[in-house]
């Protein structure tokens, strides 16, 4: 098999590679764009291109990559980034073509939400409503019923809201009746007296966890299990919704909840607090609607209850999207590899998944000598529904008091997080080391500065 054949096969396999939403690994950054964020399209590539043309028909962008050159001696995957013009609220699709070819090279769809501003006529929470959500009560601020709500009309994408009431705090509550409706953004019109206010894209009806609408939030370990030396590990996970509105997550940490009404999310009531403790030893990815997600509070702790008189356990971060690295790697500083401890590294990867495989590489660098003590590649394994791609690695014990910096080089354009647990062999006390920085990987060989 010639090199050229290999490259062609690789290119062909990549062109056939498709995700449900991100064909060819194409996706947009930021993951949850608003009307005030520039939008970049990330296109995984091997063939070189000289540039691109971008055409727009309605809300569909066609990107044509020019002069594709696949006759490359050593195929090095890279990300070709194309900036879209500023976008209004709406649902968009991007299709990527190679010049001279009719097949779609890659594609993705996404929603642009309205950024809150002083011009926003009114705000409705929650933003994301399940397509079967006719029982969900929505809360609107920015408009008032005035004397009576009987005369107020709320048009939600052509459907008249019902049960309109106002609470003493001035908020207006309503329901959107009807059976299953189509997923997507809807415009809301409010008429009170002679005045009509219109808010395009005020609500989104969902039937799946569209990434641009739902933030991915990682709970790294939620489990109850017995471990070494008689230890009995328990997770304590907490989710709090302090706000006076309902929040409908697209999934739930509850491992045993029967799913009767699709999409089987979890409704958090105003000021509701829920706790969980088991079911996801390899991590769980919660899908929370982006406008509400910053207000939700999370907590996670693991404890060895067989030694609960000695300590209360260790806090594990609940990882929001901003805490993931994208397109770089993971850096953990000053990790002890003293033989009195066992050190386990856990690595997570969430969608958008990289187009070019799930192979990552770990290297350990002694913090004093700067010598690299280990380089190993490993594969992240796909998880079950609502679980991240995952890998765990037991770091080899070093010398007494030895410490290393851990650098994990992730697959191209991966969205990743990881942490290390450092467990005392005698007391089972756990110290964690979490990542910091953008995950930019050091480059020993390419930097020679005078």
């Amino acid at each position, binding site marked *: 098999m010639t090199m050229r054949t290999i490259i062609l096969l690789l290119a062909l396999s990549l062109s056939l590679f498709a995700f449900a939403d991100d064909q060819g690994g194409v996706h947009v950054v930021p993951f949850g764009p608003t009307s005030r964020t520039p939008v970049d399209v990330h296109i995984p590539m091997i063939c070189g291109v000289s540039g691109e043309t971008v055409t727009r028909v309605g809300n569909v962008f066609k990107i044509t990559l020019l002069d594709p050159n696949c006759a490359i001696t050593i195929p090095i995957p890279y990300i070709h980034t194309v900036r879209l013009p500023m976008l209004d609220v709406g649902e968009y699709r991007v299709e990527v073509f190679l010049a001279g070819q009719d097949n779609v090279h890659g594609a993705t769809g996404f929603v642009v939400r309205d950024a809150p501003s002083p011009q926003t006529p009114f705000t409705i929470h929650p933003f994301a409503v399940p397509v079967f959500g006719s029982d969900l009560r929505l809360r609107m601020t920015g408009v008032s019923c005035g004397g009576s709500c009987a005369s107020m009309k709320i048009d939600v994408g052509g459907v008249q809201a019902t049960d309109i009431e106002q609470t003493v705090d001035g908020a207006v509550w309503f329901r959107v009746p009807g059976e299953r409706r189509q997923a997507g953004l809807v415009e809301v019109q409010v008429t009170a007296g002679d005045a009509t206010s219109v808010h395009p894209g005020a609500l989104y009806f969902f039937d799946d966890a569209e990434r641009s609408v739902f933030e991915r939030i990682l709970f790294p370990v939620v489990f109850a299990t017995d471990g070494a030396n008689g230890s009995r590990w328990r997770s304590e996970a907490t989710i709090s919704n302090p706000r006076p509105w309902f929040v409908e997550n697209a999934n739930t940490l509850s491992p045993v909840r029967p799913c009767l009404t699709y999409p089987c999310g979890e409704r958090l009531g105003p000021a509701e607090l829920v706790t969980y403790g088991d079911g996801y030893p390899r991590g769980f990815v919660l899908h929370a609607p982006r406008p509400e997600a910053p207000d939700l509070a999370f907590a996670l702790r693991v404890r060895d209850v067989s030694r609960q008189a000695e300590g209360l356990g260790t806090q594990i971060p609940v990882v929001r999207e901003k805490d993931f690295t994208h397109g770089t790697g993971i850096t953990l500083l000053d990790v*002890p590899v003293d033989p009195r401890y066992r050190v386990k590294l856990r690595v997570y990867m969430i969608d958008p998944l990289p187009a070019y495989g799930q192979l990552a590489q770990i290297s350990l660098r002694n913090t004093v000598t700067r010598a690299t003590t280990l380089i190993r590649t490993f594969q992240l394994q796909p998880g079950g529904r609502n679980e991240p791609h995952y890998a765990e690695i037991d770091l080899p014990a070093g010398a007494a008091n030895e410490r290393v910096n851990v650098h994990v080089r992730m697959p191209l354009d991966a969205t990743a997080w990881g942490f290390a647990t450092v467990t005392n062999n005698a007391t089972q006390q756990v110290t964690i080391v979490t990542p910091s920085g953008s995950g930019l990987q050091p480059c020993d060989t390419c*930097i020679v500065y005078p």
Partner: protein
Amino acid sequence: MKRFTLLLLLVAALPLAAQEEILVLPPGPTTDTFVTLRLDVYCNPILSHTVTRTGTTIVVAATPRGGTCPSPPLPLPYDVELGFLPSGQYTVEVRLPWGQTFTESFIVRNAKPGLVDVRPFAVPMMPIGSRLRLASDMALCAGEDCSGVTVTVGGVVVPGNRLSASSDGSVFFTPPPHAPGLVDVSVTANGVTRTTPNALYYYDPAAEPDPSVWERILFPVLFNSGGAHGSEWVSEAAIFNPGRWFVENFNRIDTLPCIDYGCTGLLSPNGFLSFGGSSYVNGVALLVPRPEAEHVAFSLRVRDVARQAEGFGTEVPVVREEDLYAGTITLLDVPLDPRYRTKVRLYAFDGSPFSGFVALHDPKDGTRVTGHAVPMRRSCSGIACAWTPAYGELDLPSGSADERVNVYVTAGQYGSKGWAFASITNNDTQQVTIVTPDGRGGLPCNPCQVK
């Protein structure tokens, strides 16, 4: 006394608060960010405004509501949207009808490197010892020979003997002295010139650091000290610069001896720095140039070395600006079990002594159990106040066995940003568990007005 207090409030109530009259959002704007000015009004609410931009001067004429100031004055933040701005050094004037004017200045930096990529972004006005890395889309030096390359910084040509070739095709050089402010950088090679406007920022190390240039990164505890029950607490911090260029921080927080010029935190490419605690028992901030801050990695751990055979200590987060909170900070599921002592630590970058507030709520029904005012103070002078947080702490009262509460903290003054965390220490083993904040929703509604 009540009358005196009311009078004091009326006198103190200015149209804009004294602390932060004009807040730039985001605090480190780039050409890719939508810029908003938040006017912290505490008296007469602003009804409307006009914006006039002439070059890099922005004038906001605000029209407040007339009448006397309500008592007590309440925060009435008012947002003025400026939108996307080209790179530059901007001056904002907010004018009120009765002749009062407030000013603020800020930098908008390039979001992406231009044709000439110069790092780091910020250098001192007398950059002795500074090393800049310049990269371009064209070939520069021929091997180690840079004689055909000309670099111009702010209109000043860098002497050729200060240029050195790097093996990755970039050029390192010592920049010329320059007055504070943004400058253009050009490179000419083989008769072709490339320029990036506003590529580099010169700063005065003796002047107040510009928050739009420097990110304040909080190390909440950085000290060595003996504690209760024979404990010997030490802090272990580390900083890593993964970039291919030097990073020059505004200040230093490490304990390493200063034997070279400037003694700023000059981190070399791939540079790793580990250091122990010093005297920052109430925390300290490191000021890192914003374009470099996102890449630089930090770690912090506290250990009881008197019991180091039992465990390796507890990681304490190094807090980046995006992790600070304006408003109420939430700490969920904090134990009050009498087997532990629980301390809440509060941080804010505000000036004069003021009070933070800690409220404990029952997680079962959300009702408030108790609330405590916490004095917040800092001890600093001059520009050191830029990296010295105001600090307060509160020992939570012991509760019943296995009792837990949710803790809601207000750390910042006038709604400015703060941070807090709780440490839970076992009375017998000295094992420490920490609880750090999450979520920006604040206090749970109670009662929640739900229909």
